[in-house]
């Protein structure tokens, strides 16, 4: 399948969570995955393996980028961390890109700024539509989230997602 012409700016969460689930390859479907410097440092601290030893190619920025005052003020109000602030600063410069994050506050700010935002769950489910995984595999991976991943999701909601997948794909 042809890659989508979409550049993605990535926060630490999706990279860490997809790696924990052995699904980091799903990101290869994007035209480019840009990782801000601070996000890269967070990943190196919490899950260094996520950035090496696989075929996913990240564009890691070699310098920190700084937000303008209004963005910094909003980020402070929402208590965003430095990685999220750098990612949103980058999004402001690339508004056509997609922002990938699992942080509710960062997502809230990004959506209010008008950006397209998605998280690990969306990327996993999208993999069926994009022909990267079979529906049965995604159903299994979703079951593994509480066991293998640090992505926290309400048990009942996870159950509901699995039901939707089963219904959608006649499993």
């Amino acid at each position, binding site marked *: 399948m042809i890659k*989508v012409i*979409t550049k993605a700016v990535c926060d630490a969460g999706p990279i860490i969570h997809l790696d924990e689930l052995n699904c980091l390859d799903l990101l290869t479907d994007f035209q480019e995955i840009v990782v801000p410097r601070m996000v890269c440092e967070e990943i190196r601290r919490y899950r260094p393996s996520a950035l090496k030893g696989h075929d996913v190619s990240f564009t890691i920025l070699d310098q920190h980028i700084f937000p303008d005052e209004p963005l910094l003020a909003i980020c402070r*109000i*929402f*208590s965003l961390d430095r990685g999220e602030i750098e990612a949103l600063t980058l999004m402001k410069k690339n508004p056509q890109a*997609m922002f990938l994050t699992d942080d*509710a*506050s960062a*997502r*809230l700010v990004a959506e209010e700024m008008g950006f*397209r935002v*998605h*998280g690990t*769950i*969306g*990327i*996993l*489910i*999208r*993999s*069926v*539509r994009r022909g990267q995984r079979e529906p049965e595999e995604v159903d299994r991976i979703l079951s593994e989230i509480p066991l293998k991943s640090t992505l926290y*999701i*309400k048990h009942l*909601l996870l159950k509901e*997602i699995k039901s*939707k997948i089963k219904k*959608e794909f006649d499993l």
Partner: protein
Amino acid sequence: MKTIETEVPEQLYKKAKALVQEGWFRDEKDVFSEAIRRFLTTHQSELMEKFVRDDIEWGLHGND
């Protein structure tokens, strides 16, 4: 008021203490209460569920 006992990283504590010393908060308890309050404001269950549901819809029927 409920009393809780928890461990926080040294750096985090130092930053909270600095805010108190600069006069922005009465004491460290106020700093942590405010931090938790803000976190809870932006991490409401309904909001997180909405984001997941949006992701399901995009995952299944999106065009990118």
